[in-house]
C-alpha cells in the first residue's frame, strides 16, 4: 500500500528544488532528443530509400563527372525504364553562408523517377515549359521567403558566369516529398540550361554528369542492372559504381565520419550530469524523510511500501521532467528543422527517438530512486525514529 498523497506532497515540499530539478531534467531530455534527431536525420535517406532506383556514379570520386555519352548507353541497359541526370551546382544565394543544395536535372523524368515528389505551389507544366525555371524545396523557400513567380538569383561558385553575374532562376514550383529519400531544401533546375550556358560560353565549369539515377522497370532485379552497368564501363574511360539508393545514402553517412560517436559521447555526458543532479535531489529528499519512514513502518507499512514511496517520487519527478523535455523537443521541431535544415535535411523528432528519451527518463528515475529506496527499505524503525528531522 502506497500513500500517493505522501509521494506528491513530499515532492512539492521544496517547491523551488522540485521545479529546478524538473527543469534541468527537461533540458537534458530535450538535448538528448535533439542529438538523437541529428543522427536520425543523417540516416533518414537510408531508411527511406527506394528499392527500384539504381545510382550510377564515378567509382573514383564524388567530385568526378561521368561523360555525357554514358546516358544513352545506360538507357539501353536491360530493365532501365527511365533515367535522370543529376549535377551538383554548388552555388549560393547572396552570401556563401546561405548554403543549400542545387542540382541540374532532367525535369520531366524527375517526376517519373521520384514519385514521392509533389508540388505544394506552382505547376509541373510551368516548370517544364521554361528552361530557366526551377523547383525549390519548401524548407528553403520558407527560409528565404521565396515564392512561385519570384526570380531566385544564385551565384555559381562552381559554375561562375563569364560576366560575373548570378544565375537567374525563375521559381515555377515549391515542392515537398512524401519520403525522406528527397530532402525539402534543394533547388532543381533544367540540365539543358546548364549545358547550353556552358556551350555558349556564358558560364564555365566542369562538364559531365554527377550521377545518373536509373529507374528499374517492374520485373527486373536491381542487382542485375547494377552488375550490368558496372561491367559496361569496367575499362573506362571512367569506371563507375552502381549501387542501390540506400547504399548510396549510407556512403554519405559514412563519409561524414564519426558524428554518431560524437553525438553519443555528448549524450552520455549529458545523462551522467543529469543523473547526478536528480540523485542529489532524491538523496536530499530521502534524508529529510528518514523519520517519516520510521513512522510509516511503525504504523504497519511494509518495507516494500516505503521502498515504493521513495522510488515513485523519483519516477514522478523524472516523468514530469522527461515529459516536459519531450514536449519541448517536439515543439521546437519545426524551428530546429529550419535552423539546421541545410546541414541536416530531414531533421525530425521521430517516435523511436521519443521512446528512447522516455526510456532514458525511466532509467534515470530508476537509478536515482533505487539508492534512497533501498536505504529506506533496509532502515530499522528504531534508527529511523531517532533521526533528526
Amino acid at each position: 500500500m502506497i500513500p500517493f498523497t505522501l509521494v506528491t506532497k513530499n515532492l512539492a515540499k521544496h517547491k523551488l528544488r522540485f521545479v529546478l530539478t524538473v527543469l534541468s531534467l527537461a533540458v537534458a531530455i530535450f538535448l538528448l532528443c535533439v542529438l538523437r534527431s541529428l543522427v536520425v536525420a543523417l540516416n533518414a535517406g537510408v531508411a527511406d530509400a527506394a528499392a527500384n532506383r539504381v545510382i550510377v556514379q564515378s567509382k573514383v570520386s564524388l567530385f568526378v563527372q561521368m561523360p555525357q555519352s554514358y546516358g544513352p548507353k545506360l538507357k539501353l541497359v536491360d530493365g532501365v525504364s527511365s533515367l535522370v541526370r543529376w549535377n551538383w551546382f554548388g552555388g549560393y544565394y547572396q552570401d556563401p553562408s546561405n548554403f543549400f543544395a542545387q542540382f541540374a536535372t532532367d525535369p520531366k523524368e524527375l517526376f517519373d523517377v521520384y514519385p514521392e515528389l509533389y508540388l505544394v505551389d506552382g505547376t509541373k507544366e510551368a516548370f517544364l515549359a521554361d528552361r530557366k525555371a526551377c523547383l525549390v524545396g519548401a524548407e528553403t523557400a520558407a527560409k528565404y521567403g521565396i515564392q512561385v513567380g519570384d526570380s531566385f538569383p544564385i551565384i555559381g561558385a562552381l559554375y561562375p558566369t563569364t560576366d560575373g553575374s548570378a544565375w537567374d532562376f525563375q521559381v515555377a514550383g515549391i515542392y515537398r516529398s512524401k519520403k525522406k529519400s528527397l530532402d525539402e531544401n534543394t533547388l532543381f533546375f533544367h540540365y539543358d540550361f546548364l549545358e547550353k550556358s556552358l556551350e555558349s560560353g556564358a558560364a564555365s565549369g566542369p562538364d559531365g554528369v554527377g550521377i545518373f539515377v536509373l529507374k528499374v522497370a517492374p520485373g527486373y532485379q536491381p542487382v542485375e542492372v547494377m552488375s550490368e552497368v558496372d561491367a559496361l564501363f569496367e575499362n573506362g574511360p571512367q569506371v563507375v559504381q552502381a549501387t542501390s539508393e540506400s547504399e548510396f545514402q549510407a556512403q554519405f553517412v559514412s563519409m561524414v565520419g564519426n558524428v554518431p560517436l560524437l553525438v553519443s559521447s555528448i549524450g552520455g555526458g549529458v545523462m551522467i550530469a543529469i543523473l547526478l543532479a536528480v540523485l542529489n535531489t532524491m538523496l536530499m529528499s530521502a534524508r529529510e524523510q528518514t523519520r517519516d519512514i520510521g513512522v510509516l513502518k511503525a504504523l504497519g507499512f511494509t518495507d516494500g511500501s516505503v521502498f515504493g514511496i521513495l522510488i515513485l517520487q523519483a519516477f514522478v519527478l523524472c516523468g514530469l521532467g522527461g515529459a516536459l523535455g519531450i514536449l519541448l523537443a517536439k515543439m521546437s521541431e519545426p524551428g530546429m528543422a529550419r535552423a539546421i535544415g541545410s546541414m541536416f535535411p530531414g531533421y525530425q523528432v521521430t517516435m523511436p527517438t521519443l521512446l528512447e528519451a522516455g526510456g532514458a527518463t525511466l532509467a534515470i528515475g530508476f537509478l536515482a530512486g533505487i539508492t534512497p529506496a533501498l536505504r529506506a527499505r533496509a532502515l530499522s524503525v528504531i534508527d529511523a525514529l531517532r533521526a533528526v528531522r
Partner: protein
Amino acid sequence: MALVPLSYNLRSLAVRWSATLLTVFGIGATVAVLAGVLALQQGFETLFTESGRDDVIVFLRQGATNEGDSVFSLERAQILMKSLPEVETPEDGQPLIGAEMYLAVRRTKTDGGETNVPIRGVSQRSFDIYGDGVRIVEGRRLASGADEVVVGKKLVERIRDCQVGRTLTLNTTPFQVVGVFDSDGPFASEIWGDRDRIGEALERPVLNRVVAILKPGTDLADLAARMDADPQVPCKVLTEKEYLTSQTSALSFVLRGLGFFLALVMGTAAVFTATNTMLAALASRTYEIGILLALGYRPYAIFLSFLFEALVLGLAGGAVGCVLALPLNGVDTGAMNFQTFTEVAFAFRVTPQVMVTAVVFALILGLVGGTWPALRAASMRPTEAMRRV
C-alpha cells in the same frame, strides 16, 4: 568589516559531502563535455592554422574558396606560372613554383566504411617548396613520371591499401605505394602522386592550384591586386596560412556552435543543481546564520560567504571536468572538412585555453547557481533564522 571565516564554508561542504560530490561531478561532467568539444575544435584548427606557412603563396581561381572549387586548365596554369617575376629562383635556375592537382577520391576505410581522401598530384617542385613541411618517414620519394604514390602517415592505419608495397588503383590505373610521409598539417591525411600520371589516370586534365615561394621583400598586397585584375588568368592570391585558416571556418563554426549550444543547455541544468545544493546548505545552516546575524555579522558578509561556497563548488567541478577531459588530449580522431568534403585526421588538444574556458565556465555555473540562495541567506532576520529549527 567582518567576513564569515571561509573555513565555515569548507566545513559545510565537507559535512554534506554526498551532495557536494554529486554537485561537483555534475558540474564536472558538464564541463568535460564542453571541454571535449572545444578540444576537438582546437585540434582541428591547430592542425590547419599552425602548419600553414607565411612564405608559401597559394594561387586559386577567382571566386574559389578551396582547391576543390578552383580549376585551372593546363594552358592557363602555364600562363600563370610564367607571369610571375616575383617567384624566388634558387641557384639551379628553376623557379620555386609548382602547379598541383587536387581531388577527393573514394577510398575504403580499414573498418569497411567509405570515405573521401584527398589525392594531390604534384611535381618535384612541390617537395622543394614545402621543404621540411613534408618528410618521408618510410620508403622513398616518388619518382617523376612513374605510377607511384606516397601516402600521408595518418592514412596508413585508417585507409585500405595505404601501406608501402601495396597497390592503389585509381580509376583503371594501378599505382605503387613507395613511401609514407609525415606533415604537421592536413597533408598527412593525403595521397600524393605524380601530377601528370594522376591526371591521366583520372581522366582529369586540369590543375587546381599553384603554389610558390616569392622573392624576399615582395609586396603580397600588390601582387594580389595585380593578379585579381589580371586580364589573362585572374586569380586569388593568399598565403598558405591564410588558405588553411579559411578551411577551418565551416567545421569550427559548427563545433563552436555545438559547444555554445551544449554550454547553454547543459549549463542551465548544472546551475539548477548547484542552486539545489546551495539551498540545502542554506536549510541546514539556518540556525548558524541566525547566530552569525545576532552576533553582528552584516547580511553582505553572509551573502559573500554563501557565494564563496558556490564558487568553491564551481571551481572543484571545473577541476574535475578538466581531469575528465584531459585523457582526451592527443587521442586521434577524424572529422569532415566540410569545405572539401574530405576527412582529416587529427588529435584532440586540451590546450590551456580550453582548460581556462572550462574552469571559467564552471565558476560561472557556481556563481549563477549560488546567487539566489546567497541572497536568501542574506535577507534572513536573526530571530526568524534562529526559530526555524
